[in-house]
């Protein structure tokens, strides 16, 4: 595989989706690192109790061309833990190919902690056979710019696809999640559940599209994106799309952007919690709803700890008395 030429990067105009500007994020003097290719192949009926743990580390000044291939044959079961870290400015340009055979089950957990100057672009292509399950989870707390693009094709009947994710971003970070799910067979189910917490001048992007082909009757597709903006400079852009050509389907999506609800906050305050504690509790709950989708206690605990750490840093800076508490104090 030959790496991309840097001066040839696609501009937002070329890509027709205006939210991520690659040429601006990537520095021009990167040096090609050796191509890294990992293939995981599980044969028919192979059930793996032990998770595969893969770590991709970015090095300053490098252009990493990465390739990950996961093939599960019929009835195989596997958990893959894919971790990203690094230091300095670099670009990880990664292609992931995933084939989930009939009756196979794959848990795919991505923990992205790239360096604050690192750029991570990941194109994921998933194909699913009949009765298969793909359960994906992404925690994104790193990188100057990350783009996670998923194209999933559900080719077999009764397949189940779950894409869940958390984007916790601060500073000047930019996190882009773009999803295209194609239902090409009847009776399949897909779920997308993404939540974003955006602080400082961070920018979150969620574009999810569900395409139901005419043959894919009885499709059940759901899509939800919630975002909370923690500071005035943050921005969230959401574009949940439905493209539907079959009539006997259940497809819906929801999207919200805002700040913490005042009502639950008031409830907790009335029960004697400090405002800081109440806020923290609500934000933790916001995050945990997605973490719980991983479905593996050990991993959930690990991810939850990473989230708590991130939140601890953010919330301690943010706590200031709201107008209400000031009012109460002044009127005593």
């Amino acid at each position: 595989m030959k790496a991309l030429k840097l001066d040839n990067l696609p501009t937002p105009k070329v890509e027709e989706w205006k939210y991520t500007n690659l040429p601006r994020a990537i520095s021009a003097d990167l040096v090609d690192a050796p191509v890294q290719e990992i293939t995981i192949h599980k044969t028919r009926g192979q059930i793996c109790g032990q998770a595969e743990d893969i770590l991709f580390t970015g090095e300053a000044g490098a252009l990493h061309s990465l390739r990950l291939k996961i093939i599960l044959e019929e009835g195989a079961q596997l958990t893959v833990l894919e971790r990203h870290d690094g230091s300095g400015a670099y670009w990880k340009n990664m292609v992931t190919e995933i084939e989930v055979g009939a009756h196979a089950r794959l848990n795919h957990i991505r923990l992205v902690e790239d360096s604050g100057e690192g750029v991570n672009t990941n194109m994921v292509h998933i194909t699913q056979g009949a009765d298969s399950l793909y359960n994906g989870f992404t925690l994104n707390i790193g990188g100057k710019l990350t783009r996670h693009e998923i194209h999933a094709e559900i080719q077999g009947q009764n397949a189940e696809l779950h894409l869940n994710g958390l984007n916790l971003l601060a500073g000047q970070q930019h996190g882009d999640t773009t999803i295209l799910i194609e239902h090409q067979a009847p009776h399949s189910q897909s779920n997308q559940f993404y939540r974003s917490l955006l602080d400082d001048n961070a920018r979150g992007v969620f574009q999810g599209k569900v395409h139901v082909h005419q043959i894919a009757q009885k499709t059940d597709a759901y899509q939800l994106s919630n975002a909370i903006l923690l500071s005035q400079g943050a921005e969230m852009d959401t574009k949940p799309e439905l493209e539907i050509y079959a009539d006997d389907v259940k497809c819906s999506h929801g999207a919200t952007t805002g700040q913490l609800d005042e009502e639950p906050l008031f409830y907790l305050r009335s029960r004697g919690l400090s405002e800081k504690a109440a806020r923290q509790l609500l934000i933790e709950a916001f995050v945990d709803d997605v973490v719980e989708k991983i479905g593996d206690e050990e991993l959930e605990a690990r991810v939850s700890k990473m989230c708590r750490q991130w939140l601890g840093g953010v919330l301690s800076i943010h706590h200031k008395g709201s107008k209400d508490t000031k009012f109460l104090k002044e009127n005593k």
Partner: protein
Amino acid sequence: MSSAISKETIDTVNDMAGKYEAGFVTDIESEKAPMGLSEDTVRFISAKKSEPEWLLEWRLKAYRKWLEMPEPDWAKLDIKPIDYQASYYYAAPKSMEDRPQSLDEVDPKLLETYEKLGIPLREQEMLAGVAVDVVFDSVSVGTTFKAKLAEEGVIFCSISEAVQDHPELVKKYMGSVVPPGDNKHACLNSAVFTDGSFVYIPPGVRCPMELSTYFRINELNTGQFERTLIIADKGSYVSYLEGCTAPMRDENQLHAAVVELVTHEDAEIKYSTVQNWYPGDPETGVGGIYNFVTKRGICEGRNSKISWTQVETGSAITWKYPSCILKGDNSIGEFYSVAITNGRKQADTGTKMIHIGKNTRSRVISKGISAGRANNTYRGLVKILPKAEGARNFTVCDSLLIGDQCGAHTVPYIESRNKSASLEHEATTSKIGEDQMFYCLQRGMSEEEAIALIVNGFAREVMQHLPMEFAVEAQKLIGISLEGSVG
């Protein structure tokens, strides 16, 4: 609601037997500009309307810009290349040459046309109710109730008259909401716009009656390019209705309109549309109107409000995004839409809500119904700018699919740059439930009656926002436009 549709609607549906009712042609001699589009066409139109120099310059500038602009291609529409030279840009009934002063002087043939369409102008002049401006191809035929409205200080006339009588208002507001270079279709309209309505409501006046414009394309190969401008000054209120039809023809005809609304402090405009242009042949998709419309309102002052309600049942292609720019603090934008596509129709419609001022609110309710081999897309933008403290948006778009050959799509763009803003969006896609159908059928309704009933229920949230006079018509239209969608 149910009693209103039951008997009457079903009868009407049966009577029509799936025909496009407004598809007749009025045989009337008309005067046209030479076919095709050039600077000369623009000059011809301007001269016909004895326009002042500044307006001609404005048109020519738009025309030159139009030549360079690309066609908008982002909508999910399959549009055959448009031959702009194969169309007439101005057509006026000969009898309108020397502007009739009152309805008595208007060619009876024209009045007959409108009577046939269910808009008896004379009757309406007698009975108090709605003031109507009717536009036939490129000219306004007549405006009713002018005198009564003038008592209140309300100006309601065709835009050509407004250019002559109120040039200062036209000059100030025209192009202020939709600049000529906004998009290719709006630009074309700016160059060759012919007629349309002009409304000005003075401060503190609540317009005593509903204002209405009826657009009719009659001539072959003629495009209609009307331009509507409504200004509600401080504390005023107006409700405005718009309806449209065209004869059945095998050629695609172009309708590129521009509507601009301006509300000042505490003012409110309610704008309702029932669009029933000829949709083309349901089997082959031949003919029909290309409906490329740019509608936009600006809430200029504090506490002002703009409300769009549309029922889109016709046109081969609908490309239309009535939008609100919420500039004044506490201003409100609303968009209620029912879009029905059947046969081989295509619709790409929605709204844009741009929140600029503090505590601005917007509400979007869109119901899309797709049947036959049609494609129906909701495309909407909600944008919260950094200064829009406390802005709120609520959006619901539901789609209903009838049959497995059609498509329903939802493409919302939601962009928030203020942390105190709150945005909610939800969308669903479903079909008519088997249990709903079963219930209706076992009560003795036919399949088509049942569908008309269920769809009317589905669209009810939007229909409620139509003025009375239109609500009944619109309900009937829904039934008619779904004819032949089952079986």
